[in-house]
């Protein structure tokens, strides 16, 4: 970053302000349905951490767009993802958010029974219906893969290139995908998880994460640790720009106290810096020297979003039972402050005053790119 005035001042001859999306984009169920169809159900979606599925038959159910998806592992330990729907009459198979099955997934309605590969293994009178193909009438699978220790699914028949979408977001932010490699995120363990129920449209949460114009006002603790945030420019504004810790700050913690020790193998020039990445459409990653904070959103409706946030530390730190409260507390507080702001904004989205939306100041203009992206993906002729 050479000078900040370029980013906070409007370009010569241009307006300081550009419009946001209109209010209806945040409250109209039809808009949300379109976003589910064209975005969440058509891209790669970060659904769970690999450790949420520790063994064959361990499962999680997550909402991806408008669909309930069942995640599990086969007998051989391979990741599997299915629509959480019985192929017989459509009853939801698993009602719990997580759990473990010893033998099979069984529909609670007529007892159609599926193994962990989704194959139909049993059903009342099945032997009298030898024409039922047990694979054709098995649970319908969706694409699944593992990246950075997380389980990603795609409901698309033909998923987009993972490299060209998810990894490209990392490249756009850090310059190369190698830059994230030194954090070795896949090897880290979940030290703490906090789930937030946010009564706001998912786009308000993305927009909030993308800008730092609000930081000095609502994040006093964060701005204390990262003083440059007071200038209102997000770490996401520049390619591979890390926000430097304040001089007296010893770690990314609520009081600037020492963290749990720099991650092994981390590039030296990153040992006092904070990086943030938005992986559209629903993942936010924060990289700090001794841990990684990994958020994923599960948009439930146009006015409700579940955010699950993991604090990842080395397996040694987690196994040792070391107290990580000071580092968890910093971003937990940031999350509470951010989500409160989003919830304060949501009600106005249906106000007649906000029919044409609000405005973005120059340090927020890059949010316009996000709006353009959403608009293009959900355009009537898109896809």
């Amino acid at each position, binding site marked *: 970053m050479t000078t900040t005035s370029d980013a906070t001042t409007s370009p010569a001859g241009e307006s300081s302000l550009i419009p946001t999306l209109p209010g209806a984009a945040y409250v109209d169920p039809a808009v949300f349905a379109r976003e589910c169809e064209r975005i969440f159900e058509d891209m790669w979606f970060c659904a769970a951490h690999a450790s949420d599925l520790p063994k064959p038959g361990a499962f999680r159910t997550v909402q991806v767009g408008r669909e309930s998806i069942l995640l599990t592992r086969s007998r051989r330990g391979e990741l599997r993802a299915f629509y959480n729907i019985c192929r017989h009459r459509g009853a939801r198979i698993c009602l719990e958010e997580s759990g473990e099955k010893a*033998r*099979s997934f*069984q529909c609670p309605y007529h*007892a159609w*029974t599926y193994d962990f590969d989704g194959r139909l*293994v*049993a*059903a*009342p*009178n*099945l*032997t*009298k219906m030898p024409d039922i193909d047990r694979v054709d009438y098995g649970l319908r699978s969706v694409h699944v893969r593992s990246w950075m220790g997380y389980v990603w699914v795609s409901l698309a028949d033909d998923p987009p290139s993972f490299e060209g979408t998810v990894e490209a977001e990392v490249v756009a932010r850090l310059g190369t995908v190698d830059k994230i490699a030194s954090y070795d995120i896949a090897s880290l363990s979940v030290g703490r998880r906090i789930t937030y129920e946010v009564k706001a449209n998912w786009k308000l949460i993305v927009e909030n994460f993308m800008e730092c114009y609000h930081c000095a006002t609502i994040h006093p603790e964060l701005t204390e640790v990262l003083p440059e945030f007071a200038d209102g420019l997000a770490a996401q504004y520049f390619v591979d720009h890390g926000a430097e810790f304040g001089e007296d700050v010893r770690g990314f913690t609520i009081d600037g106290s020492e963290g749990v020790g720099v991650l092994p193998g981390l590039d030296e020039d990153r040992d006092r810096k904070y990086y943030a990445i938005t992986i559209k459409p629903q993942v936010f990653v924060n990289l700090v020297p001794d841990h990684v904070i990994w958020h994923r959103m599960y948009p439930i409706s146009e006015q409700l979003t579940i955010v699950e946030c993991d604090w990842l530390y080395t397996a040694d730190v987690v196994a040792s039972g070391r107290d990580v409260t000071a580092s968890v507390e910093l971003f937990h507080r940031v999350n509470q402050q951010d989500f409160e702001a989003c919830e304060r904004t949501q009600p106005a989205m249906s106000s007649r005053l906000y029919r044409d939306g609000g405005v973005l100041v120059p340090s927020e203009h890059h949010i316009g790119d996000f709006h353009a992206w959403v608009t293009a993906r959900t355009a009537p002729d898109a896809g």
Partner: protein
Amino acid sequence: MQLVCALADVPVGEGVRITTVTPPIAVFRTEDDDVYAIDDTCTHQDASLADGWLEDCWVECPLHASRFDLRTGRVDQPPAKRPVRVHAATVRDDGIWVELSDEVPHLPPGVTFEAR
């Protein structure tokens, strides 16, 4: 005794439904490589026990988790209440041979099999 299948047709730890006899039977090969034969149809509802879960000398019905003892046919818990028949089984020349029981089978309500 009659030859019902080749030993190689039944993987260790699994069961196979044999439909060449009436009513169909299930032949199991335990982890200890012992071979057992019982009626294939659960006595509670029409389900194939060969599709069930084999553990030691017990098979659990895939539908409602009643377990049957492969040695005696006894059931351990509801919803099934009546035992299945046990058929003497033996391995000879890489084949599985069975002496069918002459008891009356306990088929679930409404289930019949036509003799082939």
